[in-house]
């Protein structure tokens, strides 16, 4: 099963249409899509508008590959569960989100080899062909890096109170 997800905040009909066209052309009937508040009626996708976190995680676990907007929660969950993921960033000037931060995310994570990224429909179809060839297996653990955890723990739980907001007021 291929799991498609666009998050709960806004629909992302451009991506859903691309996936539906691809699934129709490929005669795939094993694509499940979480579409959000969308008005589309896809031909070839099983649609679930919204999912709670356990259901989201279950769909992700059952999937052989994930197609998604470049949302960080989705990317981190797919990498942790070891699912190959193709991301399409939402664009600010199409009002798919408030700015182009997803483009930066897609470029950076693709450059690090953690995700596939596509920016137009032709690239999307080509990436779909690659996606299912990618090896599965966890790319990241389930917690923050040891360095970050140690810094947080040391700072939050250290007995000596950290420096005050402005130095020299500790009288």
């Amino acid at each position: 099963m291929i799991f498609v997800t666009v998050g709960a905040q806004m629909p992302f009909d451009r991506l859903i249409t691309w996936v539906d066209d691809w699934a129709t052309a490929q005669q795939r009937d094993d694509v499940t899509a979480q579409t959000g508040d969308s008005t589309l009626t896809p031909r070839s996708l099983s649609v679930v508008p919204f999912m709670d976190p356990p259901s989201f995680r279950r769909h992700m676990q059952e999937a052989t590959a994930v197609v998604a907007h470049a949302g960080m929660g989705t990317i981190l969950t797919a990498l942790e569960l070891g699912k190959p993921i193709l991301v399409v960033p939402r664009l600010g000037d199409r009002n798919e989100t408030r700015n182009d931060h997803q483009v930066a995310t897609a470029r950076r994570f693709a450059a690090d080899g953690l995700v596939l990224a596509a920016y137009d429909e032709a690239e999307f179809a080509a990436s779909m062909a690659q996606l299912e060839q990618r090896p599965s297996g966890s790319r990241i653990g389930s917690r923050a890096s040891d360095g970050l955890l140690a810094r947080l723990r040391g700072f939050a739980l250290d007995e000596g109170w950290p420096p005050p907001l402005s130095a020299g007021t500790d009288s």
Partner: protein
Amino acid sequence: MRPVSAENSAAAPHKQRKVLAVASGGGHWVQLQRLIPAFEGHRVVYVTINPVYERDVPESKVYIVNDATRWDRVGSLLLALRILWILVRERPQVVVSTGAAPGCFAIILGRLFGARTIWLDSIANIEQMSMSGVMVRRYSQLWLTQWPHLAAPDGPEFAGKVF
């Protein structure tokens, strides 16, 4: 001035502290979860925006607040009052947030309550710190980015990523 004794703290027995962990939904919440092992042995109370997330932390107390944008004055006021109420009730020693609006208010008000405050900017903010991150800068005693290229001596600190 008190001497800084960070090196000894790991060996010293510490009393249990209360950590208020605050995040809105989606990626902010997922990233917050990844920080919680840092506070093992201490009490973590959560604040988030949707009761569906309670299922991710079934053993913990979770407060649900509204989310708000900067342009939503009524929503922002309501959110600030709810955060204030939670701080009065819980009196956390530590406030940690990955964003966005609820964390912003929790850091600012938490600091005024004397809590230690930690802001970890979302890993999605690759090119610059988030707007909420910039807003809480003065109130965050630990102000962290997840990208080394954004770290600066007079700017955010880099100590690692959420993975």
